[in-house]
């Protein structure tokens, strides 16, 4: 249950020539996370592969740009044994890719130019439509005529307000605005005297003038035909560029694929960074490995490395606990719960891993709030039917649905009908106060368990003050129990016990004293911090306990909603009755099921995790083959 507890720190001492091969072997096993601390700096001062890394980066840069022009590059063959990339091969690949880019970049430029021309053409066509009803020769309007300076063009819509304001200040006017979306077409009028100023403002406003052809004074049909011809021309040029690209890819696709495969195989080596160090022909590699994979790693290295090596492993030291990466569960029934835990945080090394507890309590609370055999069965079946889309979340559906079925059996509820099954435990509506008491009891148990885990976690991480005085620590827990005991006594009609009063007074005094001493803020702020922090501890327990009443409230809500559906159905004829029953049940399953899932998650995160889970651990990210990390 303690996260990553079998992690080992390893140092692999080997010959420098074997370093690329060793990194590839480790990456293929996906069992090694590099440790870049300069622990070996004094014995092995160099970081190997610096020049290689720079060259790799350049080569990937060329390849990425080629991919942006050519589209998806051919995939590498997964079953082919991976070849190591030598320095000479890398230089050759980099050179070839640079030449390939030189060959392809004019195509990219050409396509961008054509895109711009298409945009201009579109604006021209739209302008033609804008001015279709006016008897104006646009070609005469464009540019300067006498004292008047008129411009027709387009600007980004975001710039219109600012441009209008500034043009007004420089005696220009925007006469007409049309179009919608990101670019607007505008007509600007002003005097020739200020034309130069206008040019500069328009440049700052990313204005683009429309080039209106001489023939714009021609009749509209001839004009449209001319624009259509221009469009066809552009489409033809576009097709030519694309066909040129396709031809190049056909000729060079295989070489491109090989280059990509070699670069991918060299990725683990370049991502070692400072985790690999060397001096002369000797090198060492350090990192973290799950203890259970140690034997597999050693035998794979023995099989693949040509020269001798030494693999040493040790447990993490106390001063490096915060650096140890923790593997997260990525397979099996716990995967969806692990993903939800990771939404909150990654367990610290040695911390209690909440995944199993989360899975059990999530399913339990969901079932208690949504107890119904029929509705639970629908959730299970939906999960199974949608398993291809839901992937690992199918398990979550199955578990939550099964729990709802179990509680449905305990409540005696099938699709909201409470007389088909005899309840094994209790029908919620028969005694709401009892249900609320059970929910509160469950909340107290949940919070106590959370606090106990928090105390253990803090003690394990050496935070003794936190374990005793922090929220959820020993003293706040004693204070909580004393308050709870006193209130239970009061509720039963007795007095608030003197023992409870004494315990509350003592624990509060100690907590206040601790808060006061642990703050080094100025006097006034210290008082504020002490009051707020102590208030937070008491308030936290009180509100969290009451928060669990929702577990009972939703179980009652479920019955009430079903009753509403049946009451409505009873007012209909036979057909209407069954339509309302089916739609009503669907409504309950979808809407209430969704709300209950969110409420359960909320209880887990806010009342559980926030109490005991640090969640600031480092996820174990093993070295992998392929391009999975950035430089």
């Amino acid at each position, binding site marked *: 249950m303690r996260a990553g507890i079998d992690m080992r720190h390893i140092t692999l001492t080997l010959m420098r020539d074997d370093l690329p091969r060793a990194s590839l072997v480790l990456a293929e096993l996906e069992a090694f996370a590099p440790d870049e601390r*300069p622990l070996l*700096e004094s014995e092995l001062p160099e970081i190997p592969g610096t020049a290689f890394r*720079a060259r790799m*980066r*350049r080569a*990937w*840069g*060329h390849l*990425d*740009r080629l991919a942006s022009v050519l589209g998806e590059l051919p995939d590498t063959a997964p079953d082919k044994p991976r070849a190591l990339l030598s320095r000479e091969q890398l230089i050759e690949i980099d050179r070839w890719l640079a030449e390939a880019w030189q060959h392809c*970049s004019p195509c990219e430029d050409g396509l*961008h130019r054509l895109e711009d021309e298409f945009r201009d053409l579109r604006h021209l066509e739209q302008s033609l439509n804008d001015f279709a009803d006016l008897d104006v020769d646009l070609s005469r309007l464009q540019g300067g005529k006498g004292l008047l300076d008129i411009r027709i063009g387009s600007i*980004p819509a*975001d*710039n219109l307000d*600012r*441009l209008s*304001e*500034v*043009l007004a*200040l*420089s005696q220009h006017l925007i006469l007409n605005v049309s179009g919608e979306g*990101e670019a607007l077409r505008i007509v600007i009028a002003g005097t020739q005297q200020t034309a*130069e*100023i*206008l040019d*500069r*403002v328009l*440049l*700052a*406003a*990313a204005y*683009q003038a429309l080039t209106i052809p001489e023939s714009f004074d021609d009749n509209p049909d001839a004009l449209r035909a001319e624009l259509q011809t221009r469009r066809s021309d552009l489409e033809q040029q576009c097709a030519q560029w694309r066909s040129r690209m396709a031809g190049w890819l056909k000729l060079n696709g295989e070489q491109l694929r090989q280059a990509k495969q070699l670069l991918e195989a060299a990725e683990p080596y370049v991502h070692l960074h400072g985790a690999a160090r060397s001096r002369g022909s000797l090198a060492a590699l350090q990192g973290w490995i799950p203890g259970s994979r140690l034997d597999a790693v050693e035998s794979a290295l023995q099989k693949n490395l040509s020269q001798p090596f030494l693999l040493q492993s040790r447990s993490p030291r106390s001063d490096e606990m915060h650096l140890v990466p923790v593997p997260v569960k990525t397979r099996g029934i716990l995967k969806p719960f692990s993903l939800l835990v990771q939404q909150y945080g990654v367990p610290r090394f040695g911390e209690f891993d909440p995944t199993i507890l989360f899975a059990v309590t999530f399913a339990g609370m969901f079932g208690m709030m949504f107890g119904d055999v029929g509705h639970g069965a629908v959730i299970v079946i939906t999960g199974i039917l949608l398993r291809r889309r839901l992937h690992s979340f199918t398990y979550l559906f199955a578990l939550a649905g099964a729990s709802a079925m179990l509680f449905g059996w305990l409540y005696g509820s099938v699709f909201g009908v409470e007389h088909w099954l005899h309840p094994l435990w209790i029908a919620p509506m028969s005694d709401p106060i009892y249900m609320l008491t059970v929910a509160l009891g469950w909340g107290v148990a949940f919070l106590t368990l959370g606090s106990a885990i928090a105390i253990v976690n803090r003690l394990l991480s050496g935070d003794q003050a936190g374990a005793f005085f922090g929220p959820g620590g020993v003293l706040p827990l004693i204070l909580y129990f004393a308050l709870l005991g006193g209130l239970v006594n009061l509720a039963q009609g007795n007095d608030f016990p003197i023992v409870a009063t004494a315990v509350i007074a003592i624990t509060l005094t100690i907590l206040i004293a601790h808060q006061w001493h642990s*703050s*080094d*803020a*100025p006097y006034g*702020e210290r008082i*504020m*911090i002490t009051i*707020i*922090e102590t208030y*937070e501890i008491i*308030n936290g327990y009180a*509100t969290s306990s009451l928060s669990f009443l929702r577990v009972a409230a939703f179980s009652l809500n479920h019955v009430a909603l079903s009753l509403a559906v049946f009451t409505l159905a009873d007012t209909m004829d036979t057909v209407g009755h069954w339509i309302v029953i089916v739609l009503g049940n669907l409504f309950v399953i979808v809407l209430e099921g969704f709300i209950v899932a969110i409420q359960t998650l909320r209880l887990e995160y806010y009342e559980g995790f926030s109490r005991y889970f640090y969640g600031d651990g480092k996820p174990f990210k093993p070295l992998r083959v392929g391009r999975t990390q*950035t*430089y």
Partner: protein
Amino acid sequence: VRRFTDQAYVRTRLAIMGTKLLSREEFAKLVAMSLDELSAASRFDTISGESNAARLITFERTLMQTWLDELSALLRPLKGSARRLLTHWASRYEVLNIKALVRGKIGQLPNEEIEKTLFRLPGFLSLNHDQLLNTDNVVELLRQLQKTPYQRLATQALRRYEERPDPFLLDATLDQQFYGELIDRAHHLSGTDRAEILALIGRIVDGHNLVWSLRYRYNYGLQASEVLYLAIDGGRALDRSRLQEMLHADTLAEALGHLPDGVPGHGEMPRQIPLIEATMRNELFAYATRAMRHSPSALTSVLSYLVLRYSGINQLYTIVHARVYGLSDELLHEALDPLHEEAA
């Protein structure tokens, strides 16, 4: 109750973090220290590297990371519009990265050199610097940027750059878009938060507009209308018509005569732009210090703290940098406090 406790959390956090802000006297003590003492005090001595230059880069990134960690801690209880506003403030450093990339590409610097000037930013600021670095020129860089959340900005910048390849036009576009978005997010806040945060942002924008408008107009010789277009909306005392009055003046001195009453340093503004910049900065910091302690809006206090903290981090870096490279006391004092040096 939740809102009250969240505000209390933020205030408490700020009270604790506020002790990290160094006073003028504390900075003076740092300046007076020997390199060894300074290294120990600033924890520069814990940073290893192949050379001093490499250590300084790591040091700068460590300081930046500290700032971002503090930002993350302060973001925790904030939700909705307040959270979005602060997240956007952090993207200021992404904008600075884009500017550095553009300048590097214009200057045709090698990628390794450009990279040294970039901030390493956390996950929620997720620009892929590698793809932007691996471009041949500014146009290609901006085309890559069009494939990121900065698409609108890149499209405008590309149009302007293709018409006239002036780096300052790109800088101005980036700033305009950044502050435009920031003010837009501030308008989504409600009540006290909105009024208080706009007052703070307005002062930041005033400083930016004044300094850059004067630079564009009197150093670069741009037309008043063009400068007005490049100004950022949302200033507190310097709106566009006020700026217009100033910028129609023929000289810098004459323009300063038209400064409105609300501008800090009015009547005693220095006549050199770097000193004007320092004056506006000092006034902003004085306002931010008051707002951090007394603003009724916790969000404004947080933003004020972040502004002050970032400035403090910068000053610390400047001192260490100067000492490592053995710069003279005179140069260091001028870099830290140009107004004081000028008076001396």
